[in-house]
């Protein structure tokens, strides 16, 4: 009975196979010669003891094949009905014979494992569903995509991604820095650094002062100066200064990780270089955006595709013609020279305004000073790009190349402005530090005067209690830096929103209603409705993030502020785009620029963490405010932690590891590794090209057209 009764399983395999062979690309193991007439649905129990191990193996293989098929069904281009049939049959087969596979006692364990893996798959699927349901603003973005195409939508997707990053940064700073200090640190008013000075107490609650982040806002967890330098706070013995330092480092590290991971993923998806080898094919097959659901956008898309075809054909024909190259080169050099002049001019202007505002800092209030600097920066940010646009008309580049040059120049402009601002800030920091020395001297004098001149070492006089508000304060330069950045962000935000309302909304209202009584057609002619400036907005977002990264160490409230700002921006800009903008006439694919924007973000991340790192490493912290007060350098907190909180051998290991004799060879090794990986990737690329050429020549030499895949069978 044993050997013959094995056949039902092979029959099942055979029958299922015979049914499926003409559909599958590969066939599992060959069927035995057996009675195909026999009923498949025999409820014969295949007892495991009746099978030899070889047959068991084959049965197991068959079951595994079925399982793989079930997994792969999704990716097969068949109609659902066909897939349903195959799925049900395969599932029946697997269920019927899977249980039979476990031998004896092991059968229960096997069945249990199978059950668990099914439950796990179901859980995974539910979790995926849950994750996609959690993504915010999906419907909004989809609506924008259908009206404006994927390039405008890519800005909003980028905004959403930034929101995610800022949310994580906010959780880090809020949970590990602000909340512990607020809950477990000493409360407001107990020590000098946490109290509003007597002189400012009357105006501390004024709206004007609060809006400028002075008064009560300044002496709170929002800024660096409030934090106490006590090593461990509360019953948890929470290491506050260490946490502050590590969160600062952690935000930067996390940002690097996320940006680089996204860049790598984008690079993977976009495939190997090959930008121009399939130019016409891509324009033909991939230019239509299937998300467009709006007739007006569709018409624009048609026009843009036609233009791109005609341009491509023309370019192909004219690629040999190359007259007037000297004139073109001269014009390009001239244009770059003009742009450099603009950049230099704008940098000098900002420096001049900041210095001027410092000189008159006694006369003008803080607010007016800020308005000067930020107004100048915002105006420059608005008008210089237009100027660059006009200058680029001299250059006569292909539109996509011109766009990249434009983006590069605006990037340089913003960067120059930011760094000028920082240099001005550095000057202020130095001023404050000099002031600090004077105040330190004054404090010793003041303390001496409290004891009426009797300053002896073994003094038994009771300590005089002083109100914290009366103690003379040092000028806390870190809080000043934090405040500057917060003010910059706020005024930048305000400028953006006001430009949006005036430039887009007011313009749209005027065009719409004045059109009834105007001589020429406002909608088609001069002002018309504005288009959504994707690249300008993306750059604004990137620079905004750069400022957050720069200032987050000195003002822990910045990520929270940014989360709020992005949230509001999302709703405001979604509304503005749907209400006031028209679809772009020249539509550029967003995907090619994706890595371009990520690269810019990476550069900004690097450049904005440089100043913060410089100040942390070189400038000694203020003596009376912040979590590092009293230390020589801010990173001394790490040394202190190693000495007091970790066992002695750990400190030794760490000191060996940070020995320059070890660090330098390690860095050398990394440089060599990079060089090696670079050269192997180059050789892979070359091998790739060789194979491609070989493929072409081999195919051309063969006579009948090469039938390369059996998927034809599926198609027919």
């Amino acid at each position, binding site marked *: 009975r044993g050997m013959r009764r094995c056949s039902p399983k092979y029959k099942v395999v055979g029958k299922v196979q015979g049914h499926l062979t003409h559909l599958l690309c590969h066939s599992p193991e060959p069927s035995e010669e057996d009675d195909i007439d026999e009923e498949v649905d025999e409820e014969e129990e295949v007892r495991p003891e009746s099978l030899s191990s070889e047959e068991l193996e084959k049965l197991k293989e068959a079951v595994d094949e079925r399982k793989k098929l079930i997994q792969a069904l999704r*990716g097969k281009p068949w109609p659902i009905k066909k897939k349903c049939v195959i799925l049900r049959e395969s599932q029946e087969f697997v269920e019927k014979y899977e249980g039979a596979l476990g031998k004896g006692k092991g059968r229960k364990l096997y069945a249990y494992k199978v059950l668990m893996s099914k439950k796990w798959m179901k859980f995974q699927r539910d979790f995926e*569903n849950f994750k996609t*349901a959690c993504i915010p603003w999906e419907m909004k973005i989809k609506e924008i995509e259908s009206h404006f195409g994927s390039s405008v939508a890519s800005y909003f997707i980028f905004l959403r991604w930034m929101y995610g990053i800022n949310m994580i940064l906010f959780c880090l700073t809020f949970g590990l820095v602000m909340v512990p200090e607020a809950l477990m640190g000493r409360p407001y008013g107990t020590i000098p650094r946490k109290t509003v000075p007597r002189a400012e107490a009357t105006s501390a609650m004024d709206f004007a002062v609060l809006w400028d982040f002075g008064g009560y806002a300044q002496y709170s967890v929002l800024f660096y100066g409030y934090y106490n330098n006590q090593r461990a706070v509360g019953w948890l013995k929470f290491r506050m200064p260490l946490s502050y330092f590590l969160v600062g480092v952690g935000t930067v590290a996390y940002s690097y990780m996320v940006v680089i991971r996204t860049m790598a993923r984008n690079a993977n998806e976009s495939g190997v270089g090959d930008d121009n080898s399939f130019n016409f094919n891509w324009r033909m097959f991939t230019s239509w955006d299937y*998300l467009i659901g709006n007739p007006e956008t569709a*018409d624009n898309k048609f*026009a843009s595709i*036609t233009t791109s075809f005609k341009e491509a054909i023309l370019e192909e024909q004219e690629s040999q013609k190359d007259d007037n190259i000297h004139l073109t080169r001269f014009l390009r050099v001239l244009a770059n020279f003009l742009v450099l002049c603009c950049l230099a001019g704008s940098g000098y202007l900002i420096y001049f305004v900041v210095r001027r505002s410092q000189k008159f800092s006694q006369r003008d209030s803080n607010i007016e000073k800020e308005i000067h600097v930020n107004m100048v920066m915002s105006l420059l940010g608005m008008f210089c790009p237009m100027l660059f646009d006009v200058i680029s008309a001299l250059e006569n580049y292909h539109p996509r190349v011109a766009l990249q040059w434009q983006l590069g120049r605006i990037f340089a402009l913003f960067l120059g402005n930011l760094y000028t601002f920082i240099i001005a800030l550095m000057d202020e920091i130095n001023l404050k530090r000099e002031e600090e020395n004077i105040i330190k001297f004054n404090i010793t004098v003041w303390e001496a005067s409290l004891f009426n001149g009797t300053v002896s070492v073994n003094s038994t006089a009771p300590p005089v209690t002083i109100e914290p508000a009366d103690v003379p304060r040092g000028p806390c330069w870190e809080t000043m830096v934090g405040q500057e950045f917060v003010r910059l962000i706020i005024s930048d935000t305000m400028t953006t929103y006001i430009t949006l309302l005036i430039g887009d909304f007011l313009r749209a209202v005027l065009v719409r209603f004045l059109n009834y009584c105007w001589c020429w057609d406002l909608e088609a002619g001069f002002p018309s409705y504005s288009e959504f400036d994707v690249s300008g907005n993306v750059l604004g977002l990137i620079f905004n993030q750069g400022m957050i990264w720069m200032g987050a160490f000195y003002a822990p409230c910045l990520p929270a502020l940014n989360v709020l700002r992005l949230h509001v921006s999302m709703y405001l800009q979604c509304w503005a785009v749907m209400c006031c903008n028209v679809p772009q006439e020249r539509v550029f694919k967003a995907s090619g620029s994706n890595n371009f924007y990520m690269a810019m973000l990476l550069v900004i991340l690097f450049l904005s963490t440089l100043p913060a790192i410089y100040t942390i490493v070189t400038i000694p912290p203020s003596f009376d405010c912040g979590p590092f007060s009293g230390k020589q350098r801010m990173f001394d907190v790490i040394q202190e932690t190693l000495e007091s909180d970790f066992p002695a051998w750990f400190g030794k290991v760490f000191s060996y590891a940070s020995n320059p004799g070890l660090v330098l060879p390690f860095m050398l090794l990394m440089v060599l590794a990079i060089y090696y990986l670079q050269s192997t990737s180059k050789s892979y690329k070359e091998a790739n090209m060789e194979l491609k050429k070989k493929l072409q020549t081999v195919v051309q030499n063969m006579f009948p057209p090469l039938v390369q895949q059996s998927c034809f069978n599926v198609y*027919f």
Partner: protein
Amino acid sequence: MGTTASQLGKDLLSEYQELTFLTKQEILLAYKRFSELLGKDEKDVLHERVPMDRILTLPELKSNPFRKRICYVFSTSDSKNGSLTFEDFLDLLSAFSDSATMEIKSHYAFRIFDFDDDGTLDCGDLEKLVNCLTGETDETKLTAEEMRQLISNILEESDIDKDGTVNLSEFQHVISRSPDFVSSFKIVL
């Protein structure tokens, strides 16, 4: 979603999730939208076949130049009239969904572009394709000379075996290198 969810059985729902790239919410949304397309007397959402002109009223398909071809390709009707059942509709959404693989998308894209259904993209197919892409009006159409130039450039780039047509494997070879294809070949309800 209460009543519709109970009309689409749990088993069927999990089977569809297994067989397509759609999530549970997407399938339920598709069910809702499909049942809105049905007439008053057609109650059986799962088995009813909706004619092509009603499918083309969907806003996602209305402005698409390839809408008719899409219906023909995904239709399983015997009379090849482009009518879709609910399962065909799910097939359509699955192939155009965000998580569908490059292979599936390129396979279906090839079938959509193959206007005469002969398994290759020859000059006639390419010409019709270009005309679809450049719109209906005369001002946006390409001249005959430009058309000829364009088609010869395309064949030069992608026709490896030089038989004058683009077959599925050549098409997939070209498409797999494109950075835009997966993100533009997408329809979301």
